[in-house]
């Protein structure tokens, strides 16, 4: 890996605020956040509901823009990009894993994974097939390629989603509560899978969670509360801090 690239952060957030308008009331979701994420990192964003985890991920994922401050993804200031360019950036740079899997129900497993490649229009049919099968292999669903999502269990579906997020070889994968809809063992497996891919492919992962067991797998835990970053800890520190917080309650 090029050290120069490794040096510059893939995500750089400075003094970012985000306000939502609910009727006439302005609700601040983020109130000045600074965050740097470097390539190859496996970062967990932790915090109670309403702390701004999803908002932060949306800003990083280019599906939303900040009210104030600068969000740079892969070196580009998202505020300066048009809607088309943002879509383009998402397609080529970012992979998404959703809490509710969000597979296209009418397509089978193979087609779901192939979907982003078709949008990219970079690979021919054989190359796509090879890429898709390789990923399905990695997530252990090669034999389920022809199944429809509704024929799979939740864990299997999320693994398809992981494969879909990684099939374009994005620099960055965002996962918003990827394990929230899964039981703890399956959730564990998904995190293991993500970690494995992080180590093998060097893909940067940012995922939100409020589950301490999940956090333990991260390189770093960014704690968020009331729209602000509390601190950036190691998983062990974070677990202790959260335990303390819980006692304080």
């Amino acid at each position, binding site marked *: 890996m090029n050290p120069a690239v490794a040096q510059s952060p893939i995500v750089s957030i400075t003094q970012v605020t985000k306000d939502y308008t609910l009727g006439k009331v302005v609700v601040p979701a983020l109130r000045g956040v600074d965050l740097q994420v470097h390539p190859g990192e496996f970062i967990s964003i932790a915090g109670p509901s309403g702390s701004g985890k*999803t908002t932060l991920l949306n800003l990083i994922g280019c*599906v939303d823009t900040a009210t104030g401050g600068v969000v740079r993804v892969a070196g580009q200031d998202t505020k300066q990009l048009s*809607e088309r360019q943002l879509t383009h950036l*998402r397609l080529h740079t970012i992979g*998404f894993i*959703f809490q509710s899997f969000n597979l296209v129900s009418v397509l089978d497993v193979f087609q779901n994974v192939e*979907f982003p490649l078709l*949008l990219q229009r970079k690979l021919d049919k054989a190359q796509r097939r090879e890429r898709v099968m390789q990923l399905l292999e990695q997530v252990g669903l090669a034999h389920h390629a022809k199944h429809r999502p509704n024929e799979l269990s939740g864990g299997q579906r999320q693994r398809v989603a992981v494969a*879909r997020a990684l099939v374009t070889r994005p620099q960055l994968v965002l996962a918003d509560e990827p394990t929230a809809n899964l039981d703890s063992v399956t959730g564990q497996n998904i995190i293991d899978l993500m970690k494995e891919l992080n180590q093998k492919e060097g893909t940067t992962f940012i995922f939100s969670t409020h589950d301490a067991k999940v956090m333990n797998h991260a390189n770093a835990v960014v704690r968020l509360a009331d729209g602000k970053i509390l601190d950036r800890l190691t998983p062990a520190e974070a677990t202790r801090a959260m335990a303390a917080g819980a006692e304080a309650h």
Partner: protein
Amino acid sequence: MGHFRLLMQVAFRNLFSSKINLLIGGIIFFGTLLVVVGGALLDSMDDAMSRSIIGSVAGHIQVYSDESKDKLSLYGDWTGEPDLTVLDDFSRVKPVLEKHPNVKTVVPMGTSGALITSGNTVDLTLARLRDLYKQRAEKGETPELRENIDSVKSHVRQMVALMEEQKAKSRELLSDAAVDPQEAEALARARTDAFWDSFEEDPFDSLEFLENRIAPQLPDGDLLDLRYVGTDLDAFQRTFDRMEIVDGQPVPTGKRGMLLSEFYYENFLKLKSALRLDNIKQERDVNKKRIADDPQLQRWVKENQTQTREILFQLDPIKTRLATERLQKALGSQEPSLEKLLSAFFTTTDENFDERYQRFYADLAPLLELYRLRMGDTITITAFTRSGYVQSVNMKVYGTYQFNGLEKSAMAGLINLMDLMSFRDLYGYLSADKKAEIAELQQASGLKDVARADAEESLFGADSGNTLVADATPGLIDDSKSFEGGMGALRREDLAARVYSQEEIEKGVALNAAVILKDPTKLDQTMRELTQAGKDAGLKLRVVSWQTAAGFLGQFVTMAKMVLYFAVFIIFVVALVIINNAMMMATLQRVREVGTMRAIGAQRSFILSMVLVETVVLGLVFGAGGMLLGSGIMSALNSSGIPAGNEALYFFFSGPRLHPTLSVGNLVAALVIVLVVSAISTLYPAFLATRVSPLQAMQTDE
């Protein structure tokens, strides 16, 4: 390419995934079916009807005077015959038209109508009796003549008896005030033996009494409307090859005469009881109706039971006896009254109808005159001429004709044909004969022609005294002289025998002319060129297509098509609204899916084409289904044919069955409509779908 494949995959997978799609598909399916079947049926009908119109009287093009007040309407319009200005001299028009390379033939025509009366049975019988007495007066009595006279006399006597019976019956219904005592008295006198015993003393006096006092009491002799086309009969038959003589013979070349349409002959001149039997048989055999449950058939049966007078009056005593015997045998009855026997005989049910029908034609028909007119008879046609006076022409009926395939059509069947010379007489324009006749009369009376401009001077000028016009003595008109003239009466006698040359037929007025083309596809062009040719020749001609010339009838299918397309339009507008709503719902249901695609990196254009492709695929799949079923129905109809259930349909079907065909045009029309409708109805939902934010992918199920 992969892009499109993905779109198609998503579209096809989505096709049956939601009930809404099935609803939309269903609407498209039936809409397409309607467009295909309805369109093909109407096209086929249009085609068949154009064959009917072109092949009967219209030809491809009709030409008439441009100075006409009304438009030419060959089948009449709501207000009766159109007011047309005549083409003064057809012989000048014909060569102009025939010069055009695409014109095959030109047939002169004129359409008009008159009332004819079929005559009062008593009147007719009395006339026969009077003839016999005249013969006796001229040639003396022979045994044969005596026998004839006695037979007709007893027939008349029987009629009087029947009239009295009927009077007695109607008296039960009417108050005394409604009974004319003089009528009753006359009838009573005619019933007495004394009257008949003294009949021979002064037969003409007795006849006069019967003619003046008895015959008018019989409300017979209904007026019949007779529509006729005066034409060059030979050219007509050559031109309209669907025409064929059914009964009798064609009018000999150049002679005056008439061909009745077989339909008219059957439906208006046939004995009504027989016609009703025919109609019942037709409905039973062709339309599978039953007397037991069809009110129309029951009415005919009822009418046959009660309206037996027409038969009773026809039969003289000998035939009455024969008929009575035959019916008694047929019915196994001892009833002596023929009226009651007939009533019983005509009490037909589904069980005995066929037997009675067969028996009627085998036993009764030979005793009856089934038609009021026989081939070779002469009828008097009385018409109001254009200038308002009444003109009568005696016409020999040579035969009946029909247009092949249009036998049962009232539209084509109400057209009777006559020679052009007689038509001109009835229409009030002077034929060469008439002109000569009038000139002769003028000469005889010492009149001379005065130009209109000079009339005043002639009348009131210096020497006006010598040229004063008619010097008639009121009240002393001898009609044989002043109206016929010695020579005129003779001429009228020979008119029927005279043979006219082609030149005479063509030199004179016609109202319109039918033009047959060699290549009918060049109709519009030929019409334009003929209009120009008319102008160049200094003739004021109006050139119209058969469709225009057929008046409302020509527009009928166009109207039906408009109704169909309006219905289709409404259906598809409804479909548009429903599809639009359904697609909105479908889009809302798929907000997360669309949001996910957007988040993953699908551009708005992708979402737009995805929704559009989906509806178009939906439209194509169900539309193709509709087309397939439609084609199946059409091919089934094509091989089985649609029976023409009633007389009007014969004309529209151009025959007893319509074998409709499906054209590529019908399918293309259906395809285009389906595509346009499904695309339009999806535009807004598709637009909405593109507005779905990728943020919506993040929302959780709850």
